[in-house]
């Protein structure tokens, strides 16, 4: 009788536990680190049996469209959203995100890299936790640069990069000296060229939100970009984004590639890269003006204010962005596969530094940028390779199309800049800047 009662009680308890389990929906992007997080999330569910996880994995642009619609209309479809450093300051200011003020006592917030943390805070309040962070750097073929009789400095100048690109180009062998993003888009060629422009002393807007494409600094930036790509870039570069350049570099077709630091793990991965053991890394180039041409980006986890399960969502974010999670990934997948660019302690770990030859450059690159002071001259906006205003996606892509036209020769550099100036002026007038 007693046994039966005990059994019934257990069943009832089990049933009630099932009933009260809260399901949180996580919207995330499709990339290697996020897939690993999904794979390892059983660890979180084991530690939190009262929380079930439901995943929505999407391509970056579709995800952006979907979560933006949901957060703006307070649809409440998602409890945890993966968003970038572009969205966080805008959404935080709009009151669309819940402040992350309950990440737990063991969550070491001070350990987050200051540059990344600063980009995710509004009025010193944290609105998103970084899952992985990246900057950009030069990836180059050590064998080809040696063959060209040159030596890559740790901190090269744009002038050296142009010289090296020319020397490494071997048209007969189908090797191009440099591969850069050419595909039009605010997250494509504009990310690269805006970051480049910072080092040339250019800026998108002056302190009164007046567009600056008519300045000599922008002329120098775009002229340099078009010239180096014409001299030493691959054919059809205006269609190349991250993936196309990654494929070119991994198959030995590029001497140098300036792009996201996260690519360091891909190009040194022996399974996929034909040049894995011939790759060297250097900081993004500069013009000696005090700013380098590297960007800052992080994929972060945030809780929309429309979520009714913010406590459970915050618990998950705390787990996924903790030091313990990094250790878990290291244990299951190896140190080279740990999500980079978020925590200072990771870069003090000798095991990680040993497994990731690009780690030091990544850290130095991230630390060298300041999203609040991205350029040589003062600016009224936040963001290194973007301007954190809602209008930027539209104007960024429109300007990207002008720059891509300059690259293909459909427009001259002057025409592309004049056209960009006109369209950005019009957009800013329409949006009633300065606000």
């Amino acid at each position, binding site marked *: 009788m007693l046994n039966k009662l005990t059994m019934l009680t257990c069943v009832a308890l089990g049933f009630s536990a099932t009933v009260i389990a809260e399901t949180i929906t996580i919207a995330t992007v499709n990339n290697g680190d996020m897939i690993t997080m999904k794979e390892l999330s059983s660890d979180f569910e084991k530690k939190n049996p009262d929380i079930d996880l*439901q995943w*929505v994995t999407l391509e970056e642009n579709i995800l952006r469209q979907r979560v933006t*619609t949901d957060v703006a209309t307070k649809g409440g479809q998602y409890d945890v959203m993966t968003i970038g450093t572009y969205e966080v300051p805008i959404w935080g200011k709009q009151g669309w995100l819940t402040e992350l003020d309950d990440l737990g006592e063991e969550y070491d917030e001070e350990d987050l890299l200051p540059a990344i943390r600063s980009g995710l805070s509004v009025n010193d309040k944290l609105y998103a936790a970084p899952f992985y962070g990246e900057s950009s750097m030069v990836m180059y073929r050590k064998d080809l640069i040696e063959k060209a009789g040159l030596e890559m400095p740790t901190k090269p100048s744009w002038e050296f990069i142009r010289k090296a690109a020319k020397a490494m180009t071997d048209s007969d062998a189908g090797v191009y000296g440099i591969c850069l993003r050419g595909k039009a888009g605010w*997250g494509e060629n504009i990310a690269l060229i805006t970051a480049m422009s910072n080092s040339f002393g250019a800026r998108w807007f002056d302190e009164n939100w007046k567009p600056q494409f008519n300045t000599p600094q922008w002329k120098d930036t775009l002229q340099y970009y078009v010239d180096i790509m014409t001299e030493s870039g691959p054919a059809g570069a205006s269609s190349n984004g991250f*993936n196309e350049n990654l*494929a070119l570099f*991994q198959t030995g*077709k590029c001497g140098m590639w300036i792009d*996201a630091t*996260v690519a360091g793990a891909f190009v040194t991965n022996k399974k996929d890269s034909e040049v894995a053991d011939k790759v060297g890394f250097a900081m993004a180039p500069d013009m000696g003006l005090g700013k380098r041409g590297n960007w800052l980006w992080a994929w972060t986890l945030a809780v929309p204010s429309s979520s009714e399960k913010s406590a459970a969502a915050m618990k998950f974010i705390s787990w996924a962005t903790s030091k313990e999670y990094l250790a878990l990934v290291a244990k299951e997948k190896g140190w080279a596969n740990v999500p980079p660019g978020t925590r200072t302690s990771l870069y003090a770990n000798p095991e990680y530094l040993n497994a990731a030859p690009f780690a030091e450059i990544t850290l130095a690159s991230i630390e060298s940028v300041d999203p609040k002071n991205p350029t040589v001259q003062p600016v009224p906006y936040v963001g290194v390779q973007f301007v954190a205003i809602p209008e930027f996606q539209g104007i960024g892509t429109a300007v990207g199309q002008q720059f891509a036209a300059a690259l293909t020769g459909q427009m001259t550099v002057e025409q592309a800049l004049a056209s960009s100036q006109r369209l950005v002026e019009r957009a800013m007038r329409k949006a009633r800047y300065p606000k």
Partner: protein
Amino acid sequence: MATNNSNKSKIIYTALAWGISGMIFFPILWTLLTSFKTEAEAISANPSLFMFDWTLENYSDVLARSPYFNHFWNSVVISIGSSLLGLIIAIPAAWSMAFVQTKRTKHLLMWMLSTKMLPPVGVLIPIYLMFRDFSLLDTKLGLVIVMTLVNLPIMVWMLYTYFREIPHEILEASRMDGCSIGEEIFHVLLPLALPGIASTLLLNVILAWNEAFWTLILTAANAAPLTAFIASYSSPEGLFYAKLSAASVMAIVPILILGWFSQKQLVRGLSFGAVK
């Protein structure tokens, strides 16, 4: 001489038809082949058509990572549900437009069709808000409703043109024999227009199966169909071409099989009226 010319043009037209068919089919073939390659082979600068190490790894990875059969079932329910619901509304609408015409019928038809010319994003926010307020977000019912509304103008237009082919006199004769409107539609009109109705149904199943704007925006984890399944393998930062190809093949194979088996019906229906 005349026979020679006729033979020549036959050969040219046949070659042209094969060439165009090959061009249309080639991307599908390439996707299929890529789905059996490794990621490294998928991006190779010197890609091989058949001489590579064939692997099923992408399929097993995709099946392990995503609940394919949930997505598949959602696609089946949404596409068939919306097509059947659409037929229930479109048949009486097309009947009245074809047989009880007024001077505004043509304008009404044009207006219905013109809603297809509106970019869907133009009505995104009102629809999203309605779905939120009626708790239809991420539900199959919500998707069935929206897919019905999206494809209804095409269904009405297609059925209207099929019904117009049927002689009025047959329907008049049935009325004289004492048929009610319902009996006229069910016992006389529908059997006569069956090929057209079948092709309308099939075409709308295909349209709803492939729709990738509303199905991506209005769903999350529960009602997401195969379009969302494919989208989860695309990435601008990371090479997933082989896995993306495997996911694409898994998403298009069911509808290709349906199209293959029903092609006779589809062609017969399309040549019956609408596109004649």
